[in-house]
């Protein structure tokens, strides 16, 4: 039997900065973000990003946390015991055995966005695996207002994965393909992942191309998220974190709907939570906690 292709699968990877000699660093702090779909671990050496990993979350939070931190430690010669302070965040934050403290991902994303995109960021939209959060923050990355939908996971990364799987399109190509349509179709009426899936099937039966379906789903998702943001308002500058920030099919449509461009950075948008957690760890370490 031919091996099944997993269209939803995105690239897992680890990274480290060979220019930093961690053995000379006075403070080594780590942030571990165990999300519903992806897990990241990030290590700071004296406040500089030294290494990180971006992997898929398994069914077990402690295992995923270990996998993530081992990924970040890989090839660096560093061991878990070299880390002075670590902070866990994300959906699985209370289940990370080696973390010194758990901090909510809302605070971490704001802090991470502040580091990645600068102190002018006022609105952060975290489009995660299974939820979506709108956050306002001040020039230090401190949360001033936030909103998340505690009930519904529509408009999130997992929805995209389901759509990629249904249409047999690699998830990375969704954004580009969703623009290869003659004209923008009306959005699908349901953004609930389950209903959207059956609606997409129906549209395919009625002769829509895959790209049309993608366009319709992306614009429905963008609209949904813009409504969430509408409640707290969008203040300049605007930044998107989480996996969906890599999908231009959503990002560009959302920018158009909101009438504001989002800030783009060289950093991977998925590491914002772990970065924020590591920055908190670094601050707490300097305050004397260990």
């Amino acid at each position, binding site marked *: 039997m031919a091996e099944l292709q997993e269209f939803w699968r995105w690239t897992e990877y680890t990274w480290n900065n060979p220019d930093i000699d961690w053995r000379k660093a006075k403070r080594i702090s780590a942030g571990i973000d165990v999300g519903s779909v992806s897990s990241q671990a990030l290590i700071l050496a004296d406040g500089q990003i030294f290494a990180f990993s971006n992997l898929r979350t398994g069914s077990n939070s402690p295992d995923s946390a270990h996998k993530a931190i081992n990924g970040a430690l890989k090839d660096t010669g560093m061991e878990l015991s070299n880390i002075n302070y670590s902070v866990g965040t994300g959906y699985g934050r209370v289940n990370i055995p080696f973390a010194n*403290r758990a*901090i*909510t991902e*809302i*605070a971490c994303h704001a802090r991470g966005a502040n580091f990645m995109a600068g102190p002018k960021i006022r609105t952060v939209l975290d489009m995660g695996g299974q939820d979506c959060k709108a956050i306002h923050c001040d020039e230090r990355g*401190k*949360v*001033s*207002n*936030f*909103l*998340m*939908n*505690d*009930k*519904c996971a529509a408009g999130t990364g997992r929805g995209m994965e389901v759509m990629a799987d249904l249409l047999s399109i690699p998830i990375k190509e969704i954004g580009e393909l969703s623009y290869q349509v003659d004209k923008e179709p009306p959005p699908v009426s349901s953004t609930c992942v389950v209903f959207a899936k059956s609606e997409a099937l129906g549209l395919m039966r009625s002769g829509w191309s895959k790209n049309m379906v993608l366009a319709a789903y992306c614009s429905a998702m963008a609209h949904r998220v813009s*409504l*969430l943001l509408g*409640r*707290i308002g969008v203040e300049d500058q605007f930044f998107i974190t989480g996996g969906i920030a890599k999908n231009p099919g959503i990002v560009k449509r959302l920018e158009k709907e909101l009438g504001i461009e989002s800030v783009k950075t060289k950093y991977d948008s998925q590491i914002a939570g772990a970065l924020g957690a590591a920055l*908190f760890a670094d*601050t*707490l370490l300097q305050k004397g906690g260990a």
Partner: protein
Amino acid sequence: MIANYGYKDGSGEFFIAIDTDKCNGCGDCVPVCPAKLLAMADDEYDPLSEKTVVNVIKEERNKIKYSCAPCKPASGRGPLPCVAACTPGAIAHSW
């Protein structure tokens, strides 16, 4: 900081907004809520502060439309107990 707890669904928007800058941590709102939605805890959205503020209990956040309904009868409602109990005016409901 304003923390919005709740959700939006097909029937409307249901959020309890708590202004943690106004909340003085007195806890007067906790016992007056008949549905016991509120609890005092560290301000988890500002991990570097030591302040204790009120929040909506996590398990309750996705059903506040129903839990709050007894305080909001269609026949007209008086002051909400939680809002009335809050001297600094830190609690607001979106619906």
